[in-house]
């Protein structure tokens, strides 16, 4: 990776639209992902943000990190707000009330805002086929309110509302498959990404932004505070999530699956789990159970992508 340091400034847009000075935790994977996404999207966007970490860390009155037009209204209505923005721009352009300039509507939310409380609004917006890009920054729990479990929290993870105890291993349900739900809506573009793979992430943002109609990016965003690891491990954990097959990077274009990074042999899940305090309590048999599940899911995905 070291040699990339020389070339990276030439490969990435230098302009920052998500300004530094925000209040994210040290090592925040989500803030990094947002920064990369904004670099890729450029200036001609309108962003609508759900309540959550990114909203809170980026907009404390009277400051803002947003150098692009940005609106936050509520937690669960981001996709609906995006629908209105898109419809508004469309009709105003049609009626000649604004210049016919292409502006991409971008919705951003966390995993709770996407797969729990915001799912209805998102499903509605997908079904109606609005032209917008929806980004889910998945840090696998309600981190902003203090690490409560969501439907995106992985099996076995400790959170404050799925604590490990004498009678519990922590989260007892498997992570909800949001990309599959997106695919089920027959939208033109769905992909998973991770800021540990910045060029892949940027490529996907560019591709998704170029789509006419709904596009969905599910971005795994490692969270040192909630996952209980030291902030220097953010990039490594994102890489391990991919290399273990826990969070494979893939695209679904018009229903067609493509695995972006395949590995002849996946690393054992223990490599990923053992670096995080949220899995510290897990006995070997639960780790084995997770390994079996990951293997099976990975094979299913490979079959779809074949």
């Amino acid at each position, binding site marked *: 990776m070291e040699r990339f340091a020389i070339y990276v400034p030439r490969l990435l847009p230098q302009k920052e639209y998500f300004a530094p000075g925000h209040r994210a935790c040290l090592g925040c994977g989500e803030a990094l992902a947002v920064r990369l996404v904004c670099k890729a999207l450029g*200036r*001609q*966007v*309108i962003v*609508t943000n759900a309540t959550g970490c990114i*909203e*809170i860390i980026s*907009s*404390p*009155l*009277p400051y*803002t990190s*947003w*150098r*692009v*037009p*940005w*609106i*936050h*209204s*509520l937690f*669960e*209505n981001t*996709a*609906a*707000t*995006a*629908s*209105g*923005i*898109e*419809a*508004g*721009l*469309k*009709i*105003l352009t*049609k*009626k000649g*009330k*604004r210049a016919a*300039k292409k*502006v991409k509507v971008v919705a951003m939310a966390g995993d709770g805002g996407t797969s729990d409380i915001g799912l*209805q*609004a998102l*499903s*509605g*917006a997908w*079904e*109606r086929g609005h032209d917008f890009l929806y980004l889910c920054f998945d840090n696998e729990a309600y981190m902003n309110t203090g690490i409560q479990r969501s439907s995106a929290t992985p099996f076995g993870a400790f959170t404050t509302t799925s604590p490990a105890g004498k009678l519990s291993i922590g989260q007892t349900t498997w992570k909800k498959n949001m990309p599959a739900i997106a695919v089920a809506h027959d939208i033109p573009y769905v992909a998973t990404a991770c800021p540990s793979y910045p060029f892949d992430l940027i490529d996907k943002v560019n591709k998704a932004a170029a789509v006419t109609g709904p596009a969905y990016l599910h971005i795994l965003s490692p969270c040192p505070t909630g996952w209980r690891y030291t902030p220097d491990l953010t990039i490594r954990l994102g890489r391990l999530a991919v290399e273990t097959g826990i969070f494979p990077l893939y695209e679904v274009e018009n229903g067609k699956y493509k695995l972006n990074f395949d590995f002849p042999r996946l690393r054992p899940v223990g490599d990923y789990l053992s670096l995080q305090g949220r899995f510290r309590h897990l006995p070997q048999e639960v780790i084995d159970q997770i390994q079996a599940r990951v293997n099976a899911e990975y094979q299913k995905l490979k079959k779809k992508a074949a």
Partner: protein
Amino acid sequence: MEGSFAVAEAAKLADADVIAAYPITPQTHIVERLAELVANGELDAEYIPVESEHSAMSACIGASAVGARTFTATAGQGLELMHEVLYIASSLRLPVIMAVANRALSAPLSVWGDHSDVMAVRDCGWVQIFAENGQQAFDLTLCAFRIGEHPQVLFPVMVHLDGFHLSHVVEPMSLLEKSQVEKFLPPYTHPFALDPDKPVTMGAFAGPSLYMEAKKAQDAALRSAKEVILQAWQEFGKISGRYYRAVEHYRSEDARVLLLTMGSFSETAMVAVDELREQGEKIGLIRLRLWRPFPFEEICQAVGDAEVLVVLDRCLSFGAHNGPVCSEVRAALYPQEKKPKVVGFIGGLGGRDISVKEFQQMVTRGLERAEKEIKEEVEIIGVRE
């Protein structure tokens, strides 16, 4: 024309850009008509058939924030599902215009009219106006665009029309010409619309050191909107011949007893007043048109020298001292040196009518209660024991 169609006609004449709506009885005829107008090309608008009222208001917020003239309609449970979103529209100063076909709240489920839905969103920071018939629903919807979008206002506006009593009743109506409306209603431009050329941050978060200041400013802005509201109605009167006031009077000049109503029941109350006047009673009626911002001065003036004020609420505020309108009016009058005794009644819940006779009974009973200073406060009219 039906009240609902009149409202849709007003949105059409206003050339609304975006309509986002979810169907609910008794609002359905409004949005069906709008969808039809868009489908026929009679109204050049984006119609977003959202999956809930929560999303309806959220989509309106998005559309209004990019500078589109935005309209929606709802009722009852739909208004409650919108609840938290209503505060966003008013706090972000987005002039979404909404017709509410007032409906009771479940349980038991009732699709029929009363004001329970309105009262639950009383404090959401919207301008709220009541219509008493279909013509008014048309007029006031049109005025709502001018009021809400005025650069000194920039607040969302609710026009209340009683479910079924107004939404589904066919009346003769006088509409306006497109050219008249164009003169009355300037194009909508939001000074801080979302635009990549002039990026703004909308909907930031405020800590304890700023929140109160933001809210104080919002309250002051809503209060000062009254001036623009009255001005808009004055201008509207000039083109239509129909003038509106924050508090309307009916034979109230020398009245000893005054009835106070809001919404469609006012017309029945007028008949009751006429009959009692014929019998020599000094009785009159005042009708509250502007519910928010509350017209304190106008209420005090309207009450004049009356000795007893009988207030009808179409909402039961469970466990409260009285109905919300009665409580508000009484509070407004309290600091006045000379004030009438205020007696509250609750009635017309879940679509039940109040007859002329019942209005007259309310007057008799109200006088009795005022004279005897009866302490029991909540009295429901027209209910079986």
